[in-house]
């Protein structure tokens, strides 16, 4: 068994080829194979959202995707969110609103919030809370996170 699988993808706009075991998740490939440790492992079972990435523009939990399933897909991780210089507006607003404490959940929240604002630039508070219900934070109590996202969208809260 355990013959390695060769996978061609695009990660953060760059073509990437990697070899993975059939039972490796995308999260493991990113963190252990490609040294992209921005995506976090919280629960490893789809509950916490710390591993959130975009797959062909769609928000997914990378702990629930096999590396082998990524053939011919476009992946965006937290490493691909900020411009070359400076911060993405969401990152800036998270700082301003103190929307993080330990920071483990933050990459997942930023990726998930970006996915929301890409399709719905001016969400209501309810839409933000609903969209982010799959991202857990043990530190902040969520309000600051929600406010940071709404502020980024130019929606007052």
């Amino acid at each position, binding site marked *: 068994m355990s013959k390695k699988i060769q996978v061609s993808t695009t990660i953060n706009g760059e073509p990437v080829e990697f070899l993975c075991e*059939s*039972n490796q998740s995308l999260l493991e490939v990113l963190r252990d194979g490609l040294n992209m440790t921005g995506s976090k492992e919280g629960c490893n079972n789809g509950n916490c959202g710390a591993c959130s990435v975009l797959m062909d523009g769609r*928000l*997914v939990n990378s702990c629930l995707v096999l590396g082998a399933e990524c053939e011919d897909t476009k992946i965006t991780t937290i490493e691909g969110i900020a411009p070359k210089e400076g911060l993405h507006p969401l990152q800036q607003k998270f700082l301003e609103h103190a929307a993080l404490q330990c920071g483990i959940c933050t990459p997942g929240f930023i990726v*998930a919030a970006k996915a929301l604002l890409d399709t719905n630039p001016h969400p209501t508070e309810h839409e933000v809370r609903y969209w982010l219900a*799959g991202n857990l934070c043990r530190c902040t109590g969520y309000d600051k996170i929600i406010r940071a996202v709404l502020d980024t969208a130019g929606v007052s809260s």
Partner: protein
Amino acid sequence: MQNFEYLKPTTIEQAVAVLYREGEHAKALSGGTDLIVQLREGRRSAKYVLDVKKIPDLSQLTLNNDGSLIIGAAIPCHQIYGNAAIAASFPGLMDSFTLIGGTAIQGRASVGGNLCTASPAGDSIPSLIAHRAVCVIAGTGGWREVPVEAFCTAPGRNGLQRGELLVSLRIPAQPAHSGGAYLRFIPRNEMDIAVASAGVTVTLDGNTITNARVAIGAVAPTPLLVIEASAALIGNSTSDTSAINACAVAAQAAAKPITDMRGTVEQRVHLVGVMVKRALAIAIERANR
């Protein structure tokens, strides 16, 4: 995670051949939101994982001209509710598909997978039953169809035989003046497992309910179609409270729940009556639109 071989069949024939040859050792993978967790936690085992998303029949999503709907078994939830025409035609199904997990889960999780997982609390199942959905199944010996209410056989078990693959769900067109709804009770606002749930469809002629289907979830080993609850409504007025009460009582009588960390028997029996009544009210309101 345990080791397995990853296969990517592109035809139904290839997939069922492996499923037949390997039996329990081969598992179909669509969204992976259940299977990958189960394999990782050792709750299921597999020597072969068949990624079925490249099989065209499992990746079709078609709203036919006659109003009927075909959902390929590997189609993720977001793709269904993201289709404006389908969402407008089947709001009761959308109630379910927008409730399964959170946003990221809906990006992967398929309705076919939710059904095959056969959880007593599976959110898609009562509404599929209420909408008269039929499972289209391929096997080495040919094709067969099974109504969704007969597909789940026990918690975590479905009626697929060795070498069989769920290909798609066929949902008939909803007659004029029909409406559907699904509701569940959970202690959180989002992202939780139903304590009790109900899926309902009705067809109206003026104020008279001419047809109805009531299905309940999380209150028995499998989601249930409750014929008596449906029958209590048919022929009666939408404002006939004694008929509506009889419908809820019939659903409660059919419920055979257990007490677990999510709720007690008494609470679940009570809640399922409440869910049926509330879902019915929404279905009637939608039928009147």
